[in-house]
C-alpha cells in the first residue's frame, strides 16, 4: 500500500549489518529486560554446574553410595539440604541430577524438532492433501493431553529414563509441526519469496533458503520455553515412578521418593521441586526476553 513505508520507518541501524553487529545489537536489547538477564545468568550457572557437577557437589558419591547411618537428617551445616532415606546428601543429588534433567530435556526437544520441523515445513510448503494429512494426524495427537499421553506410553514401554524421554518426544512433535507450518504459511506470502519464485526457484530452494531462516527466529523462542516444559514433564514422570528409576538422581524421581516421608520430613521433596521451579522459570523468562529482542528485529 502506498504510504506504508512512511510509517513503518524501521529505525534503521546505521552500523554494519553483518551477523556480528546484529548479535551485539540483540544482546543490547536483551540486556534491557532485567528479568530475562537474571534468567539467563541462572541458566548459565546451571550449565556450568552441570558440567562440573562432581567437582561442585559437596558429596560427589551421593549419586550412588548409600550411608544408612546418616539417613533422614534435617538440613544442617554439613548437609545443607539434609539427607534422604538412603543417607545421601540431597544437595549433591540435586546438583548431580542436573546432569540428568538438562541434557535429556535437550534430547527431548531435539527429537521433537527432528520430526516436527520437517513435517511442518512440508505441510506448509505443499499444502493440499499432504498438508491435510499431516495436520489431521497432528490433531489426533494433540487431542490427547500431553501428560496423560506421555504417561501411557511410558507405562507401556516400561518405567525408565530412556523410555520416558522417548514417550515425551513422541507426544511433542505436533506442536512443532503446527508452529513451523503457521510460520511457513505466513512467510510464503512475503514478497521476497515471490521474487525467488519469479526467478525460477524450486520449492526446495524456497523452503530452505528463503523460508526456513526466517521461520527460525520465532522458533527459537518456542524451543526455549519447550526446554522448560520438557524438564517439567520428565520430572512428572519421574515423580510418578514411570521415569528415571532410583538410584538415578533425576529431580522428579528424588521428589517422588521423598513423598512417603511427608510432611515431617519435607526436605527431600521440596528442594528438587525448587530446582525444577527455578529452571523452568529461567527458561520461560529467557524465552520471553528473546521474544521481545527478536520481535523488535522483525519490525
Amino acid at each position: 500500500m502506498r504510504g506504508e513505508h512512511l510509517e513503518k520507518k524501521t529505525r534503521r541501524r546505521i552500523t554494519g549489518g553483518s551477523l556480528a553487529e546484529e548479535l551485539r545489537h540483540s544482546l543490547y536489547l536483551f540486556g534491557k529486560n532485567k528479568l530475562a538477564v537474571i534468567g539467563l545468568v541462572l541458566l548459565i550457572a546451571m550449565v556450568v554446574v552441570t558440567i562440573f557437577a562432581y567437582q561442585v557437589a559437596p558429596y560427589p558419591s551421593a549419586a550412588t553410595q548409600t550411608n544408612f547411618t546418616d539417613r533422614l537428617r534435617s538440613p544442617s551445616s554439613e548437609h545443607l539440604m539434609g539427607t534422604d532415606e538412603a543417607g545421601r546428601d540431597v544437595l549433591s543429588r540435586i546438583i548431580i541430577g542436573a546432569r540428568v534433567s538438562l541434557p535429556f530435556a535437550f534430547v527431548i526437544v531435539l527429537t521433537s524438532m527432528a520430526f516436527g520441523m520437517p513435517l511442518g515445513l512440508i505441510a506448509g510448503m505443499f499444502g493440499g492433501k499432504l498438508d491435510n494429512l499431516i495436520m489431521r494426524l497432528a490433531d489426533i495427537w494433540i487431542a490427547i493431553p500431553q501428560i496423560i499421553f506421555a504417561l501411557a506410553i511410558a507405562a507401556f514401554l516400561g518405567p525408565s529414563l530412556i523410555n520416558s524421554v522417548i514417550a515425551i518426544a513422541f507426544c511433542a512433535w505436533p506442536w512443532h509441526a503446527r508452529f513451523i507450518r503457521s510460520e511457513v504459511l505466513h512467510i510464503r506470502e512475503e514478497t521476497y519469496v515471490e521474487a525467488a519464485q519469479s526467478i525460477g526457484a524450486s520449492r526446495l530452494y524456497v523452503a530452505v533458503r528463503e523460508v526456513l531462516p526466517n521461520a527460525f527466529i520465532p522458533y527459537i523462542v518456542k524451543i526455549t520455553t519447550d526446554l522448560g516444559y520438557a524438564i517439567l514433564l520428565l520430572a512428572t514422570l519421574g515423580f510418578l515412578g514411570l521415569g528415571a528409576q532410583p538410584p538415578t538422581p533425576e529431580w522428579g524421581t528424588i521428589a517422588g521418593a521423598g513423598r512417603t516421608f511427608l510432611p515431617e520430613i519435607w526436605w527431600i521433596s521440596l528442594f528438587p521441586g525448587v530446582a525444577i521451579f527455578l529452571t523452568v522459570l529461567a527458561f520461560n523468562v529467557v524465552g520471553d526476553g528473546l521474544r521481545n529482542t527478536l520481535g523488535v528485529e522483525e519490525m
Partner: protein
Amino acid sequence: MPETMLELKNLKKYFYLKRGALRREAGVVKAIDGISFSVEKGRNFALVGESGSGKTTVGRNIVRLYRPTEGEIWFNGEEISKAKGRKLKEIRRKMQMVFQDPASSLNPRRNVRSIVSTPLDIHGIGTRGDRLKRVKELLNDVELSEDYMYRRPTVLSGGEKQRVAMARALASNPILIILDEPTSSLDVSVQAKILTLLEELQKKLDLTYLLITHELSVVRNFTQDTAVMYLGKILERSTTNEIFNNPLHPYTKTLLSSLPVVFDEELALLPKTTPLPDASTRQLFSAAGCRFYTRCPECLGEKCAAEEPPLTEVAKGHFVACHKCL
C-alpha cells in the same frame, strides 16, 4: 524496425472464491478481464492504474507467478502462458521483475551478495568463483560499492535496497524487465537517481522495460507507450505523448486532472474535469456495462450502463473504450 518483445492477447485472470467445507464457488473476482497490448523492443511501456485496476496482477501473470485463466502471452516469439518445468525456467532467465516496496522484496536474513546471487544459484550459472565476480560486476552496474556485499537489507536505505533488487534482476541477463512501482516508496531525489540509473542500464544492456505504476509524472518522463487500466480492463492505449497531450477517455482525463503538480506551467497542460466520488472497493459485479459507469462524469446514461464499449482505434495507434469518444 520494431520487434515485438511481449504481446498479451485477451489475457484474463479470475480468482474464484470458495466457501464452505465442500469448497463451493461463492463468487469470482475478475482481476483481469481481457487485456491486450504489445511491448516493442527498446520502447518502454507503461501500464497505468490505481489500486484495484489489476495492473499488478498483469505483471504477476507475465512472470507466471499466477497462471492465466484465459488468453495468450507471447514472449520473444513464444507462447508462454502454459509453459512448465524446465521450459518455464529458461523463460524466466530472460524476463525479470523488480518488485514494489524493496523492503519486503529482499529477504532480511540474507546478505546482499547472497540476494544478488540468487538467479545465478537457481540457474546454476558459473562456478562459485564466477558468481562472486559476477556479483561484484552487478553491484558496480547499479553503482554500489563492494562494501555492500555482506550487509543485510535492514541497514540499507530505500534507494540502496532498490539497487540491490535491480542487481538481482540483471543477474541472469534478461531482455525484458518488469518494474512494479519501482519508485513509489522512494523520495523524490532518490527516485530521480534510480530512474537515471535505469535509463543508463537500458542503453548499456539493451533492455526493455514494462513499467507498472500509478505515478503519471514518472510515466511521462520514462516511457514511450502507455495503457490505462481500470477494474481489469484497458480503457485507453496509445503512445505516451498522445495520452498526455490528447487524452480521450474520461477516466484518463480524471487521472490527469488529479495530479498535484508543482509548477504553474504544468497546470495548463492538465485537462479539466469534475471530481468524482470515492471508488468503492467492490470488485465483484455482474453488470454488463462500462466499468467506469458508476463514476464517469461524462456518462451517456443508459447506453453506458447496458453495453460495454469495446476498445476501438479512433486515431492512428490510439485506442479508447468509450461510447462518448466514438
